[in-house]
C-alpha cells in the first residue's frame, strides 16, 4: 500500500508569486531593451540634458545637474537588465516588488532625460507640482480608506470632491475663503451621510449607491455651473489660500520647495495622513473601526455599535473628500469648471488600493499618481515628440496598471463591501 515517488512523476507547477516574478523579470528586461534603443540610441550622441534643481530666487540658486543623455540611458538600461536577471532567478521572491519599484523609478529618470535632451528642464518645479497634484489624490484616498476600514466602499469620492468644490466656490465667492472651506467640508459630510444612509440603513449595493451619487453630482454641478456661474461671474471668483514658506526648512535645496513652500492644504494633508495613521492603529477609535471592517459580528458581540461606527466614519470620509474639493477651487485654481475633478476621486480610490489600505501607503501612492500628473503637465511645456493626447492619459494608465494588480495583491478589510444585517 505504500506509494513511491520518483522525481519524474512530480511536475512542479509555479506558484502565483513565482509566475509574477517571471512576468516582472521579463518586463524589466524588455524595458531595458526599450530604454537602450529608444532613449539611448534614439538620442544624438553627445547631447546633454540639463536639470534645474532650484527655483528662481531661491537661497541656493542656480543648482544644476547636467548629464550626457545617451550615457544615462545606457546606464539605466544596464541596471534594468541586471535587476530583471536577478528577479528571474527567483531566489528572493519577496524582493520582486522592490526591484520593480526601483526599475520603474529608473525608467522615469531615463524618460525625463530623453525628453530633456538638449534642453533645460526644471526638475524641482516638477517635483513641487508632484506634491501639489498629489494632494487631492491623497485626500481622496484617505476618504476612501476611512470608509473601507469600516467595510463601506466609497466610490462616491469623485462626486463628493466635485460637489464640495462647487459649493466651496460659490460660498467662498459671496463670503470668505474660510467660510467656503467650511461649506465644502459640510457638503462632503452631507454626501457622506447620503452614502451612509443608502448603504447602511437601506443596504443598497455600495457600488451602485456610489455611482448614483457621482452621476447626480456631475449632472447637478454641470447644470448649475452653466446656468448660475455662467450668468453671474461674481459667484465664480472665490480667491485663493496663499502659500507660505516655512522658515529654514523651505530653503533646503530640492526638499524645501518640494515640501515646505505651499498653501495650508498641503501641510494639513501631510499632517492628516500621520494623524489618521496613529488614530487607526493606536487609539480606541481605530481599534473599534478596524474591528467593524474586519469582523462586524465580533465587534457587535463585544458591545460595539456597528451601525454608529460606520455612519461616523463614512461621514468623516465625506468631510475629508470635502476638504479635498475645497483644495481644488480655493487653492489650486480659484474658479469652478464643469467636471473639474476629471476622475481624481477614482484615482484616489486606486491610491487607497495601491497603498494597501494604509494611510502612509496612500501617501506614497498619491505621490506616484501626483508624479504622473506632473509629468503630463511639464512634458507638455517641454515639447516632446509624444502627442499631448497620450500625455494626458498618463495618470489614468498608471491607475489601470495599479488597479489591475501589477503591483501585487493586497488584503482589503475582510468585511469590505458587505452590509451588516443584525437579525
Amino acid at each position, binding site marked *: 500500500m505504500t506509494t513511491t515517488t520518483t522525481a519524474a512523476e512530480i511536475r512542479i507547477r509555479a506558484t502565483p508569486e513565482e509566475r509574477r516574478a517571471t512576468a516582472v523579470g521579463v518586463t524589466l528586461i524588455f524595458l531595458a531593451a526599450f530604454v537602450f534603443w529608444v532613449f539611448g540610441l534614439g538620442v544624438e550622441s553627445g547631447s546633454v540634458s540639463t536639470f534645474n534643481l532650484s527655483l528662481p530666487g531661491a537661497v541656493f540658486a542656480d543648482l544644476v545637474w547636467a548629464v550626457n543623455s545617451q550615457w544615462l540611458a545606457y546606464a539605466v538600461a544596464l541596471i534594468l537588465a541586471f535587476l530583471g536577471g536577478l528577479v528571474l532567478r527567483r531566489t528572493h521572491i519577496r524582493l520582486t516588488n522592490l526591484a520593480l519599484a526601483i526599475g520603474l523609478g529608473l525608467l522615469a529618470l531615463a524618460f525625463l532625460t530623453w525628453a530633456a535632451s538638449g534642453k533645460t528642464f526644471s526638475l524641482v518645479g516638477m517635483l513641487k507640482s508632484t506634491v501639489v497634484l498629489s494632494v487631492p489624490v491623497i485626500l481622496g484616498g484617505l476618504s476612501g480608506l476611512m470608509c473601507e476600514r469600516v467595510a463601506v466602499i466609497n466610490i462616491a469620492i469623485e462626486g463628493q470632491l466635485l460637489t464640495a468644490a462647487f459649493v466651496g466656490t460659490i460660498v467662498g465667492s459671496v463670503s470668505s475663503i474660510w467660510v467656503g472651506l467650511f461649506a465644502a467640508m459640510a457638503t462632503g459630510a452631507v454626501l457622506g451621510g447620503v452614502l451612509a444612509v443608502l448603504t447602511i440603513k437601506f443596504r443598497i449595493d455600495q457600488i451602485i449607491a456610489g455611482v448614483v451619487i457621482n452621476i447626480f453630482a456631475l449632472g447637478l454641478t454641470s447644470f448649475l455651473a452653466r446656468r448660475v456661474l455662467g450668468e453671474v461671474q461674481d459667484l465664480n471668483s472665490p480667491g485663493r489660500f496663499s502659500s507660505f514658506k516655512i522658515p529654514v526648512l523651505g530653503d533646503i535645496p530640492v526638499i524645501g520647495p518640494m515640501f515646505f513652500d505651499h498653501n495650508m492644504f498641503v501641510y494639513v494633508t501631510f499632517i492628516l495622513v500621520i494623524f489618521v495613521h496613529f488614530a487607526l492603529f493606536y487609539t*480606541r477609535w481605530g481599534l473599534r473601526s478596524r474591528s467593524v471592517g474586519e469582523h462586524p459580528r465580533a465587534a457587535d458581540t463585544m458591545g460595539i455599535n456597528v451601525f454608529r461606527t460606520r455612519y461616523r466614519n463614512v461621514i468623516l470620509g465625506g468631510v475629508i473628500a470635502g476638504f479635498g474639493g475645497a483644495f481644488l477651487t480655493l487653492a489650486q485654481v480659484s474658479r469652478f469648471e464643469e467636471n473639474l475633478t476629471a476622475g481624481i476621486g477614482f484615482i484616489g480610490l486606486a491610491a487607497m488600493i495601491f497603498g494597501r489600505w494604509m494611510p502612509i501607503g496612500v501617501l506614497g501612492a498619491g505621490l506616484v499618481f501626483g508624479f504622473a500628473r506632473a509629468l503630463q503637465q511639464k512634458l507638455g511645456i517641454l515639447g516632446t515628440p509624444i502627442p499631448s493626447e497620450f500625455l494626458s492619459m498618463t495618470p489614468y494608465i498608471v491607475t489601470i496598471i495599479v488597479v489591475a494588480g501589477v503591483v501585487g495583491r493586497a488584503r482589503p478589510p475582510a468585511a469590505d463591501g458587505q452590509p451588516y444585517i443584525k437579525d
Partner: protein
Amino acid sequence: MELELRGIRKEFPGVVANDDVSLRVRSGETVALLGENGAGKTTLMNILYGLYTATAGTVLIDGEEVVFHSPSDAIKAGIGMVHQHFMLVPVFTVAENAVLGDEPTERLGWLDKRRARKAVRDISERYGLNVDPDAITEDLPVGIQQRVEIIKVLMREADFVVFDEPTSVLTPTEVDGFFEIVNTLKAGGKGIVFISHKLGEALEIADRIVIMRRGRTVAEVLPSEVTEEQLAELMVGRPVDLVVDKGRAQPKETILAVNSLSVLDDRNRRVVDGVSFEIRSGEIVGIAGVQGNGQTELVESLTGLRPSITGTVFLNGEDITTKSPRAIHKLAVAHVPEDRQRSGLVLPFTVTENIVLDSYYEDPISKGIQMDWSAARERAERLVEEYDVRTPGTEVLVSTLSGGNQQKVIVAREFDRDVRLVIASQPTRGIDVGSIEYIHSRIVEERDQGAAVLIVSSELDEIRALSDRILVMYGGRISGEFPGTASPTEIGLAMLGSTSEAEAS
C-alpha cells in the same frame, strides 16, 4: 448567584425556534444544554446574550428580571459567551481582541497596549491558559483561539459563561484540556452553560443535563442517572442506533491515486504539502484532523476546483491533475462539498433546478439550447422520492428546506449515476440525526456497489463510524494512518501532529 430563563419563546417568520423553554444555572455548577442540530439551543443562547429579542418569556438574575437589548447589556449583567464560530478579528493580536469593546486607554482614547498585554498575561496565568498576548490571532491553532475567547469573557468579569458547541473544533486531547479549564472556572465560582449535541461530553462535564427537542425543553436529568442510549432517545424522541451498520470492506482495484500533491490556499501558503495516498474500489477512507489542516484545499484540488503546485492525481489510471471540475465530474466522481449552502446548492434556486445543476447541459434535460423542464421535474420528483427528501414539492426554493433535507438534495444529485469515486466533505455537519443515519447508510451503499469513498470530517466519531481506513491530516501532511478500528486516543495524537505510524493492514 443564579441565572434563570423562564418560559422563553422565539418566533421567526414561519417557524417557532423556542417554545416555553426554561433553564436555570447557579454559580459553581455546569449545566449541559443538550439537543440535536436545529433543536433551538443557539437561538436560546442568542436571546440570553441580547443578540435576539424573545417573543415571550423572561430572563432573571437572582430572581430579578433583566432585559437585554444588546450584547453590551448582557456583558454588563455578567454574562459571557464563547461562540461556536469564534468572534475574533483574525488580523488583531490576542491582546487587541481581548480588550476590544472595553479598552484600557490613556487620554484622548490612546490605547494603553501595555496594560492590555498585562491583563491578558495575568488572566492567562491565573487560569493556566498559556496564551501569548502579542500573537496574531489568525496564526494560532483553533484550540488556542478558543482560549482567547475565554480570556475575553474573563476580562469582563463574567459570572456566567456560555460555551456554544465548544468541542466541535478541538482534537480529543484538546477536549481534555478544555474540560480542565471549564472545571477551573467552575471552581472559581462561575456558572457554566455547556451547549452540545455530543452525549458523552455532556455526561462527562455536566452537573445537570437539560435536554431540548424541537424548540422545547423536554427533560432535565443528572448524569449519574442516565446512560448514553437513554440520552440519545430523549434528544431525538425515538430509539437511536448509534453505530453505522456496515459489513467488512472488500477493497479491489485502486481507483484514486494521489502522489506528492501540494496545494496553496488563498493566501498562497502551502497548506497541502506533498500528500500521497490511494483509495481502492469498495473501501471508505476517512481523513480525520482538526479543521484548517489542509483538508479543504485537498478536496478542492481533487475535484478540480483549485490548482495544485506539485504532484499528480490519477483516477482509474487516468491523469486528472489539471482537469476541470466538469471533466472530473464526468469521470463518475461524486462530490458532496464541505459547505452545502455556499458551494453545494444555489439557495435561491428550486429543488429541481438544484437537482439538474450537474446535468442541465445534457440530453434529456436540455435539447440543444433549450431546457426541457418537464424532464428536469421528472428527474427531481424521482430523486426526492428515492432519497427521502422531505419537501412540499420540487418547485419550492431549496433555501426553505432544513439542513438535513438540503444535504439529501446534494447527495441525490451526486449519487444518481454510476459513481466510481465519492468525495464527501463534512457530509453530516449541522444536520439532524435522522438525516445523518440516512446519509451514512447511502455512503456505505455506494461502497458496497464498488465505489471508492473519501470522507473528510472534523467529527472523529463520524470518521470512526464510517471508515475502513483512517488517514490523519496535520499541517498539510498525512501524520498517521490507522485501521478503522483504531482508538480515539491513538488518532487524537496524530491529530496533534505526532507522527506515530500505525500502518494499516
